[in-house]
């Protein structure tokens, strides 16, 4: 009975989603029906509510919503993957870990929804005209968004509460399919929300006065939609991994038994692994986004890379450096789990030196391009210690080297517990070292020769073979490695849990730096619109239309981050409380 009910529910849900998706097609083709131009506002059109600063409220609430949304969208992605791995290997540990991940995200899910509602209310309260304008253009997608949200909740609850019920051959497959559906809906939700915000940056489907032509798909599929989609998708996974990593780290620190310690060490390792895998391609997704912004509007591109925002990228460099260093540090500490790691300890200091060197290059400010008044307050377009390291090719080179050496850390980690048995091991190793050497030389050649002795076209073009070189080094050496270590014997069993406590702090650092970095980049993404609600179409005439200084923005991000972490701790605590039982002696009558 229960079974049929659920299946009925599921079927109707799928039907609903299909209807909704099918309904979009014809609806999109509908003719424009009397849309007006974008409203022209005055300061009086922005209500003050209870004397609070509307922009600040929106800023913080939107950021909190985004953090939670990123987390709850990302977790099901890798839970799906881990569940699939578990099904393939029939190793129940994976299944348990996947379940624990989703359990963490379930309370976060309702907080996401609450924050989404709060954001909606705040928008309607503080920016009624903007919201009104956007909702005439995105009426359908907003409606479907709400419906999809129902679908998402239903599938998520089914997926989570049905976890232990849907076990065994066919049932497990059904459960995995639910996971896929959950991800499909979740990703669609994100894509819709992205469309609204990219419309504000690169409006489409409207004429210069803001009159909508009725084609909602055109407005959704605006110039910056896909670049943001890609960037967010990848970043969310890295972010989700880092938050789960922090969870595992905390559980590790407070674990009582060595069994528990081993379990959470393993979980932390996997979460970190996920975060790093997604972190590696992230700089490229970022470059792509920036390049597309530049292609969309040179003015916006210069605002992004020059002016006051140029300094923001220096803060960003510090944070990304912190991410890379802490991820590597965690790997190095983790080598202690193996008795065979001693063989590789010598290499660590060299990797550290390269990483820090690359970090410093990245840290060197860009050539700054400014408006005259900004020029004045800064004292010239070049940073005084700028030197030649400020140009893009130097930074590209640094990023590629950082990625290659992080990969090297990972390679060493993988090898630390293994002894190769193939006869050509020595030759294979030499080959691998040669591959790295040649790859690094090539990256340096491309960066230095094209960066300093050619023109802009070459500088930009050379970044492509650079990235591919990194890619080739990674792929080829993974393949080589798997041959060299085919049939390799283990040094001994891995000692999960044998890792110093301070390694866990690397995981905390990873999570906090990620959170803060996302907040900071949210500020710039929104900030490059300057005094426009919808760029060039709907002007922000509120008293808060000005661009705040970086210090101010950083403080807002910090406050938001503290609120976020408080909520996250609450979420983790709730997850723990739900399994605690108190037996009050003599309270209930016998």
């Amino acid at each position, binding site marked *: 009975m229960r079974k049929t009910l659920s299946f009925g529910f599921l079927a109707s849900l799928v039907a609903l989603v299909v209807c909704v998706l099918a309904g979009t097609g014809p609806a999109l083709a509908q003719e424009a029906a009397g849309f007006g131009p974008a409203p022209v506002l005055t300061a009086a059109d922005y209500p003050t509510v209870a004397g609070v600063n509307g922009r600040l409220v929106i800023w913080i609430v939107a950021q909190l919503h985004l953090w939670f949304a990123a987390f709850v969208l990302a977790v099901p992605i890798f839970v799906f993957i881990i569940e699939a791995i578990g099904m393939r290997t029939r190793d129940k540990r994976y299944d348990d870990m996947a379940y624990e991940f989703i359990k963490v995200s379930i309370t976060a899910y309702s907080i996401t929804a609450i924050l989404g509602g709060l954001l909606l209310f705040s928008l309607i309260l503080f920016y009624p005209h903007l919201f009104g304008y956007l909702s005439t253009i995105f009426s359908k997608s907003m409606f479907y968004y709400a419906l999809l949200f129902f679908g998402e909740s239903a599938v998520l609850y089914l997926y989570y509460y049905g976890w232990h019920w849907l076990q065994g051959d066919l049932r497990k497959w059904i459960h995995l399919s639910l996971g896929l559906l959950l991800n499909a809906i979740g990703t669609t939700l994100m894509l819709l929300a992205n469309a609204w915000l990219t419309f504000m940056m690169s409006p489409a489907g409207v004429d*210069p006065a803001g009159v909508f032509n009725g084609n909602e798909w055109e407005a959704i599929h605006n110039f910056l939609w896909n670049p943001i989609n890609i960037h967010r998708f990848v970043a969310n996974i890295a972010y989700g991994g880092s938050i789960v990593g922090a969870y595992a780290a*905390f559980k590790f620190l407070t674990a009582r038994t060595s069994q528990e310690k081993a379990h959470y060490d393993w979980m932390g390792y996997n979460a970190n692994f996920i975060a790093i895998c997604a972190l590696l391609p992230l700089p490229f997704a970022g470059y792509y986004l920036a390049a597309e912004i530049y292609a969309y509007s*040179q003015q916006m591109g210069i605002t992004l890379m020059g002016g006051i925002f140029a300094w923001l990228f220096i803060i960003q460099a510090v944070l990304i450096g912190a991410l890379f260093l802490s991820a590597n540090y965690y790997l190095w500490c983790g080598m202690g789990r193996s008795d065979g790691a001693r063989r590789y300890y010598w290499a660590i200091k060299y990797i550290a030196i390269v990483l820090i060197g690359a970090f410093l290059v990245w840290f060197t400010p860009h050539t700054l391009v400014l*408006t005259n008044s*900004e020029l004045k307050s800064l*004292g010239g377009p070049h940073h005084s210690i700028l030197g030649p390291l400020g140009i893009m090719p130097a930074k590209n080179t640094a990023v590629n080297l950082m990625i290659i050496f992080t990969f090297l850390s990972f390679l060493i980690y993988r090898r630390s517990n293994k002894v190769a048995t193939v006869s050509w091991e020595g030759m294979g190793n030499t080959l691998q070292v040669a591959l790295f050497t040649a790859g690094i030389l090539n990256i340096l050649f491309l960066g230095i020769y094209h960066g300093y002795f050619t023109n802009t076209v070459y500088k930009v073009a050379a970044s492509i073979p650079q990235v591919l070189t990194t890619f080739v080094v990674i792929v080829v050496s993974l393949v080589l490695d798997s041959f060299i270590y085919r049939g390799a014997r283990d040094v001994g069993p891995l000692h999960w849990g044998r890792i110093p406590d301070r390694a866990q702090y690397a995981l905390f650092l990873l999570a906090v730096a990620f959170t803060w970095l996302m907040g900071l980049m949210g500020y710039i993404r929104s900030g490059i619109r300057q005094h426009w609600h919808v760029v060039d179409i709907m002007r922000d005439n509120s008293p808060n239309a000005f661009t705040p200084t*970086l210090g101010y923005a950083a403080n807002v991000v910090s406050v938001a981050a503290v609120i976020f972490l408080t909520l996250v701790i609450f979420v983790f605590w709730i997850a723990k409380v739900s399994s605690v039982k108190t037996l009050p002696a003599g309270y209930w009558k016998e």
Partner: protein
Amino acid sequence: MRQFLSVIAFMLIVIGSFSAYSNLGIPQIEPAPPPTEEVIDLGSMDMGQFLALGDRIFNGKGTCTLCHNSLGRAPMLDQIGSNAQARLDDARYAGSATDIEGYLRESLTDPSAYVVAGFGKAGTNDTESPMPGTESGSIALSGPELAAVLAFLQDNGGLEVTVEIPTDMGDEATDENAAEPGEPRAPFTSFQDLSDEFACEACHTIGEEAGDLGPNLSAIGATRDRDYIRRALLDPNAEIAEGFEEGMMPDDLGTQLYATELELLIDHLSQLK
């Protein structure tokens, strides 16, 4: 609990240090406030004030210098005097302008009508200009503002100013907000104020402030006499200080400075030893 507290403390310290770095580790630049339409009283304006208005818009609201600067993103406009005729004569020219004023106006209102070779949007083979139209969108100059910029461009490029001061504000401006007459500014009386106003220290090192686009002036009085300095200020391109580029140093100080201000600058600089 101890673990819990130390984790919390660790996170707060990390966040705090990010914030501290952003506030203390990098310069805090106040971004330019959103642009507003100039309040113009055309009736009482002479050509000097009109040109000064154009200059202000060019350097401020128009955001022209974002691209038209020495970094090679767009053609330098102080050379427009010699370039404009060549553009009109170019076989590629397909716009509708017949004279230089027309060309300049067209460059501002329909940038893609003619794209200077090498400056087109990537991949468009110089058929589409990256420059935004200045009448609408994010720059949105009013009719008189556009005219003032045109006059400024002519003057700045060493051309004869043929643009006339318009007599009415155009449709969008009403009489209410065109109230105050454009008063001439009061002269500055200290070197520092002057230097701030004309951004000398953005390019020059004078004492503590460091700019490296122009020669260091901290001890200029030791090697240069008053006449030299006067010439350097009034006609900077006559003699170029060794190792620096021509055309960077503003060459319109002569029309911008009051006589007392010019003397003040010369006095001050010649005493720096």
